[in-house]
C-alpha cells in the first residue's frame, strides 16, 4: 500500500456498542483499477464506503486518498474523491443544472459551466437540464447522480450499486462509460449485487463477510480457485457458508 495507490485502507474497524460492523479491513485501489466490494447485506460494504467518504469515523485504522490521510486532510482528500449511491440522490427540489452547479462549486471545479455542459451531454441529460431532479425517472436520477460524481474528474470514484435502477441497455452503457473513465488515472470502488456486472467491470474483487475481507482476487478466476463455476455461486457460498471458504 504505497503512495501510488489512489486509495489505501489500513486496518479499518468500526464498532457500535457490542456490534463489530467492520473488523480490520485493509485493501488498496490503484489508478486505472476497478475494485468490486462484494458481500451480502450487512457484510460491512456501505459502512466501509461511508468511512472512505469521511461521513463515518472509524473506531480504528485509517484511510489514505493518494497518500492524504482522510482524518487529517479531509478537504484535500475529498477534492480528489466523488461518489454516487442509490440511497443518495441529488436534491429533488433543484434542477439538474442547478445541482451540478452547486456541487461543482463545492468540489472547486474549474471552468464549471463548460464542465456542466460536457456532463449533460455525456449522460444524455440535455433534455432534463431545467427539470427538477425529483421528477426524473429513477434511471435519469441515477445518470444525474453519476454526472455529479464525475464533476471534479475524481481520482477515486466510489459507486454504490450505480446501475441498480437502470434498464439493461442503459446499465450496459453506464458500465462501459465508467470502465473507460477508469482506464485513465482514476481508481473505482464499485459495489453491486449483480455478479454479471462485477465480472464485466471489475479487475479485482473483495468479498466481505461479517465485516472482514473473506476473499480477494480476479473475478474471472476466483470461482474456479475455490472449486465453483461462477461468481454468483461464490457469492452465495460466501454469504451462507463463509467458514468453508475461510478454511480453504
Amino acid at each position: 500500500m504505497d503512495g501510488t495507490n489512489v486509495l489505501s485502507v489500513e486496518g479499518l474497524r468500526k464498532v457500535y456498542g457490542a456490534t463489530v460492523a467492520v473488523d480490520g479491513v485493509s485493501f488498496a485501489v490503484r489508478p486505472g483499477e476497478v475494485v468490486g466490494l462484494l458481500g451480502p447485506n450487512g457484510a460491512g460494504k456501505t459502512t466501509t464506503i461511508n468511512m472512505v467518504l469521511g461521513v463515518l469515523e472509524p473506531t480504528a485504522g485509517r484511510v489514505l486518498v493518494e497518500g492524504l490521510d482522510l482524518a487529517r486532510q479531509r478537504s484535500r482528500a475529498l477534492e480528489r474523491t466523488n461518489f454516487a449511491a442509490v440511497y443518495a440522490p441529488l436534491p429533488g427540489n433543484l434542477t439538474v443544472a442547478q445541482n451540478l452547479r452547486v456541487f461543482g462549486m463545492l468540489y472547486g471545479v474549474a471552468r464549471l459551466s463548460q464542465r456542466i455542459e460536457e456532463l449533460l451531454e455525456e449522460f444524455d441529460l440535455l433534455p432534463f437540464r431545467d427539470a427538477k431532479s425529483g421528477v426524473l425517472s429513477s434511471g435519469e436520477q441515477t445518470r444525474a447522480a453519476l454526472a455529479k460524481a464525475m464533476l471534479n474528474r475524481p481520482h477515486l470514484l466510489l459507486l454504490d450499486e450505480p446501475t441498480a435502477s437502470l434498464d439493461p441497455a442503459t446499465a450496459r452503457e453506464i458500465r462501459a462509460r465508467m470502465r473507460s473513465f477508469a482506464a485513465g488515472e482514476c481508481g473505482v470502488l464499485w459495489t453491486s449485487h449483480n455478479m454479471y456486472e462485477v465480472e464485466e467491470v471489475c479487475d479485482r474483487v473483495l468479498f466481505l463477510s461479517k465485516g472482514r475481507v473473506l476473499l480477494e482476487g480476479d473475478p474471472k478466476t476466483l470461482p474456479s480457485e475455490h472449486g465453483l463455476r461462477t461468481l454468483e455461486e461464490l457469492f452465495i457460498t460466501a454469504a451462507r457458508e463463509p467458514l468453508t471458504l475461510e478454511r480453504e
Partner: protein
Amino acid sequence: MRAERTAAVVLRQFYLLRGSPARVLPLFAWVAIDIVLWGFFTRYLNTVAEPGFDFVPALLGAVLLWDFFTRVMHGVTTAFLEDVWSRNFLNVFASPLKISEYVAGLVVATVATSAVGLAAMLVLAAAVFGLSFAAYGALLVPFLLVLFLFGIALGVVGCAIVLRLGPASEWFIWPLPALISPFAGVFYPLSALPPWMQTAARALPPSYVFEGMRAVVSGEAPPAGSLLWGAALAVLYVLLACWLFTRVHRQAVRTGLIARYSAESVS
C-alpha cells in the same frame, strides 16, 4: 476557508427560493400579519390611553424588532432543514465542504432572507401606521446587530439539536424564540419581572436591546454601555453555538448519523 464552497451553500438557498413561491412567501407574510395585527392594536390603545404616550413606537417597534430576531433564527434553521428534508446530508458532508464553510453559508443566506423580512416590516409599519425608524437613523444599527447575532446563535443551536436528535426534533426548535420572549422584556421593562427572571434576562442579549429601545423612544440617551455588553454576550453565544454544532457534527460522524439521515427516515 474557501469562499467558493460557502457561496455554493448560499446559491443552493437562492435556487430554492427562486424556484418556489411557497418558500418566498413566509419571508414576509407572517411578519406582515404581525405588523398589521399589532399596528391596529396600538392604534386602538392610543385612542383609549392617556394622551402623551404613543404606543406605536413602544409596542409596534418592539414587535418589529422581535419578528426580525425570530426571522433570523428561523432563517438559519430553515436553510439547514432544507438539507434534512431533501436527505442531502451524505452529498453535502461527503464533499470537501468544511463545517465552518457550511455554517458561514447558512449565515450569509440568512442575511439575505432576514433583510427581505425586515424591509417588508419597515415599509408596512411606516406606510400604514406611521412608525418611522428613519428618525432613529444609524442608532438602530447596533440594536439590529445584537438581535441578528443572537438570532444566528439560536439558529445554529437549533441546527445542532436537529442533528443530534433527528429530523423529528424540528418541532422543538420552532418555539425557541417564544420560550425566550418572556425573559427578553420585549413588551415590558425588566423591572416588571420577578428577581429570578430578571437574573435570567440579564444573560439574554435581546433584553439589553429592548431596554435600550425603550430608553431611546422615551427620549433618553442610548445606553451605550449596556448595549455593548449585550453585543459582547451575543458574540459569545455565536461562538458557543458554533462550538456546539461542531461537537454535535463530530458526534454524528462518530455514530453514523450523517449517513443514516441520507439513507433512511430517522425519527
